[in-house]
């Protein structure tokens, strides 16, 4: 009996707990590589011999870039699930879309924060309003924050799901603009172009970045899994509440009918 209660009242399972442990170990390993084992970015000027580069600030690369990529993944997943909901109208698609939007918004916020912390020493500014990559990412964050607000603001769950799906499909149009902005507006933005695309990374730096992708991917999967299960339990709980209310109402009506019948009989 106790075991049954545990399995229904928690979002955890043996598999998700194992995933959680692996993710935590992965995060610790990533931080070790990123902040201790990799070298700072230092190059020598060919004529003056002076050291140039990003120095220790480069270490944020190992978090910032994977966070950005998995923000894209989460929001694309949200859009796909939203489209699925509009076609199939099933709770699974809606719960997945909502979970992906919530986790993606957290990741997007972390992208903005890590980018800003990196920008202060490297760019000499916390934020640059003229930078297209920064602005389109901020717009993306605000649109999905709006999505989350809309989901909470609408009482009718079906209307909430339908409106949310439409907003998600519109908001995700910003993604290709975010991603391609440094190419489309080359030399019109402070943000550098893709490093991986031009293979300007190698050895331990490349390994640590790949480790970052793996670990942040696990973090996304773990958060998504639990958020999906929370959403599913909330939905079942709400359904159970409605079912209980209907049953109680029916019971009242039945008792009333009985009383009426008794009254008529008397």
């Amino acid at each position, binding site marked *: 009996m106790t075991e049954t209660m545990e399995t229904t009242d928690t979002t955890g399972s043996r598999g998700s707990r194992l995933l959680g442990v692996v993710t935590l170990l992965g995060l610790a390993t990533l931080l070790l590589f990123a902040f201790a084992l*990799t*070298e*700072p*970015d*230092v*190059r*020598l*000027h*060919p*004529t*003056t011999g*002076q050291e*140039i*580069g*990003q*120095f220790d600030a*480069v270490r944020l*690369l190992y978090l910032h870039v994977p966070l950005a990529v998995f923000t894209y993944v989460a929001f694309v997943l949200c859009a796909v699930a939203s489209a699925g909901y509009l076609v199939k109208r099933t709770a699974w698609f809606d719960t997945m879309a909502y979970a992906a939007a919530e986790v993606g918004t957290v990741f997007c916020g972390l992208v903005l924060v890590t980018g800003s912390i990196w920008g202060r*020493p*490297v*760019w*000499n*500014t916390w934020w*640059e309003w*003229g*930078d*297209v990559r920064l*602005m*389109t990412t901020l717009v993306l964050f605000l649109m999905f924050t709006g999505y989350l607000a809309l989901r909470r603001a609408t009482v009718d769950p079906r209307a909430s799901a339908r409106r949310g799906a*439409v907003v998600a499909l*519109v908001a995700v*149009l*910003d993604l290709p*603009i975010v991603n391609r*902005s440094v190419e489309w*507006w080359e*030399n*019109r*933005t*402070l943000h*550098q*172009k*893709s*490093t991986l695309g*031009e293979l*300007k*990374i*190698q*050895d*331990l*730096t490349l390994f640590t970045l790949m480790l970052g992708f793996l670990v942040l991917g696990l973090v996304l999967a773990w958060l998504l899994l639990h958020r999906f299960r929370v959403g599913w339990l909330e939905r079942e709980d709400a359904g159970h509440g409605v079912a209980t209310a209907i049953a109680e109402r029916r019971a009242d009506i039945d008792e009333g009918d009985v009383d009426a019948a008794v009254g008529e009989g008397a």
Partner: protein
Amino acid sequence: MPILVTLLVVAAIVGVLVKTLGDATLVFHEVDAAVELRADLGDGRFRVVGTPLPGLLETRVDGESAVVFTLCSAGAYADVVHVGDPAELFQPGVPVVLQGAWKAGSVPGIAGLDAPADDGWHLRTDHMVVKHDNDYRVEEGRQADIAACGATG
């Protein structure tokens, strides 16, 4: 009908985004454009991107600390007086975006610069951000890739 309206709204949003972003992104000129547009720019403030050449001079202008150097991009050169503290990672060979205006006259201490533009004008700037490249190859003693005009490649 609802699909048509949705498509129109989406097209309008995309159109506004592209137009707005297209206008907003012209945040800095290359040095050659800044020189070419000098008459049009007048004494108005603008942004310019380029790479500082080796040979920086520290001086004082109007009672404030300043750094004097030559900026290069797209094969063009401009002498610069940057008033105030430069960026933390400000170095020759690392591109910067400067904000300021054209001023007539040579920079103070021009004789001390390695390769000044010395065209009777200079940029008086007071805002500097670094435009870093996307090169993360780390090797012991690796030299930076510096292109002909001083831009990191």
